[in-house]
């Protein structure tokens, strides 16, 4: 088991995700774990990381204790370098100016497809979810990191509805459909770091967090997940990393 006495699952997600971001990257981030991870990366190892918000903000400063509640309100523009229309900030993805799209997700499948539209049949859904927002655009046009909790009901063989495309039906089907760039790079969970098999594009375990067994991952995954030949173990979150997260989210809105 991961050490839940030192940190919450959300904190683990934020720390592990932040380590995947490189200095100088331009990152399209939603609020919550993605924004916390990007902000943590800026503080720890990537001071020149630039955040984009879907509402139309380029390079805002996030003030400790003042995390914005969504990506589309004035709090997202605090001391930004530029504000622009939603259409134009999303077009940065298409033009190729975004290095990483950083997404959460309700449901993911073996090919990294994400669902945030319908639980059940789209024509007669059990639950109508809020929908894609810019998720489909991000997933269609840039390299994606997904951060989500590792639960069997979330990691399903095939999502009920492909809102944000991963590797579509696997193999070359993503590129064949017209999406010739981008795609899921890593999936960060509270158990492991996952990637995708080069040829089949099926999800595979790259690394386990300290104290997590392969068995645990299998038990919490709703499909037959692949394992890399070399499975690494991630470094546990440092005190510094956790301190920064708690400085930015003192009320533990997102890291509880």
């Amino acid at each position: 088991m991961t050490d839940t006495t030192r940190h919450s699952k959300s904190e683990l997600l934020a720390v592990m995700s932040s380590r995947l971001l490189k200095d100088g990257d331009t990152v399209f981030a939603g609020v919550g774990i993605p924004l916390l991870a990007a902000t943590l990366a800026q503080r720890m190892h990537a001071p020149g990381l630039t955040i984009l918000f879907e509402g139309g903000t380029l390079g805002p400063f996030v003030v400790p204790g003042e995390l914005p509640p969504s990506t589309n309100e004035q709090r997202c523009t605090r001391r930004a370098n530029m504000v622009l229309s939603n259409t134009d900030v999303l077009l940065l993805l298409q033009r190729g100016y975004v290095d990483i799209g950083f997404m959460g997700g309700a449901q993911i499948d073996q090919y990294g497809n994400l669902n945030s539209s319908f639980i059940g049949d789209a024509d007669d859904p059990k639950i109508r979810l809020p929908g894609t927002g810019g998720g489909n655009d991000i997933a269609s046009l840039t390299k994606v990191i997904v951060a989500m909790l590792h639960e069997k009901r979330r990691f399903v063989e095939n999502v009920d509805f492909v809102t944000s495309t991963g590797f579509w039906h696997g193999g070359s089907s993503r590129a064949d459909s017209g999406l010739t760039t981008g795609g899921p790079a890593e999936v960060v969970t509270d158990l492991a770091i996952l990637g995708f098999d080069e040829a089949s594009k099926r999800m595979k375990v790259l690394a386990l967090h300290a104290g997590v067994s392969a068995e645990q991952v299998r038990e919490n995954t709703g499909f037959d997940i692949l394992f890399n030949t070399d499975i690494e173990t991630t470094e546990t979150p440092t005190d510094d990393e956790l301190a920064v997260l708690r400085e930015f989210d003192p009320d533990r809105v997102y890291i509880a």
Partner: protein
Amino acid sequence: MISTQELEYDRAVTKSYTELRRETEARDRSLRDKVMSLEEAAALVIDGDHVALGGCTLSRTPMAMVWALIRAGKKDLKVSRSITSTEGDLFYGSGASQHILTSWFSQGIVWGVSKVMRHYTENKLARFEEWSHMAIGLGYRAGAMGIPFMPTRTMMGSDVGERVDDKTHEMNCPFTGDKLLLVPALNPDVALIHVQRCDPHGNAQIDGLPFMDADIAMAANKVILTTECIVSNDQIRRAPDQTKIPFITVDAVVEVPYGCAPHECYGVYEPFLTNLDAYADLTGKDAAAGVAEYLERYVHAPASWNEYLALLGMDNVIDATIRGRSVHND
């Protein structure tokens, strides 16, 4: 249940150039005073119109016009917006619209999935037509530019794309061979846009996040501006860089301070959080009854928009205002 009328509407979603030009030519686009009341502006909207809303989620929502349209008993509106929040609930709940085209629909991330949206869509009482956020923006942009579609590289290879594939086309680029999706132009019948300031002719200046408003105004066949403040044409001419919507596109100007409440207007007020929490509680218990109660109490009962603001409460108005102005104090 959803009417067949709406389905027919969709098949003719893209106007021919001849029709677009004819409609535009028929408008009175002259320099004139367009100031009127909310009620007069509401009368410009016709049942069945495609009504596009400016702003996004909780920002610069043209709430006062939504409120006026519901009070005027409008029906069968097709509503489009980049991202839809509580105003979408009110459209569904009032019956003013049973068809919303948007990319994301719920009150806001912190309040979870909208129970009202779920109630109306899951029970097939209304449609939520989902497109990607950028595809909607490109539809408005094509409409603004006077072209019938915009080529793009998004929304292919997804169920979002497949679910609306009767309204799009794919093509192989004749220059590069790349596969492209063609998103149809959106030319709304009416655009509702709230701005910080405009003159009586409709030259509008917007501070902060611009969202898709400039494109929507240019794309629409009629534009209704609500504004925190009417300023003189001389004030506009002192800062022509800041004008985002030119008067030639505008048909009505309504001065409505706090016209987005309980949503926000950049630099003027932040969302009225107490009211939004109360709304989430009310509709969370029983979606249909909750939204009906809200509509009765906040939309139909007050005699005027100011009386509506009084119901939101002076404390909340002042609190939202102080937080709104905070962008000037960082």
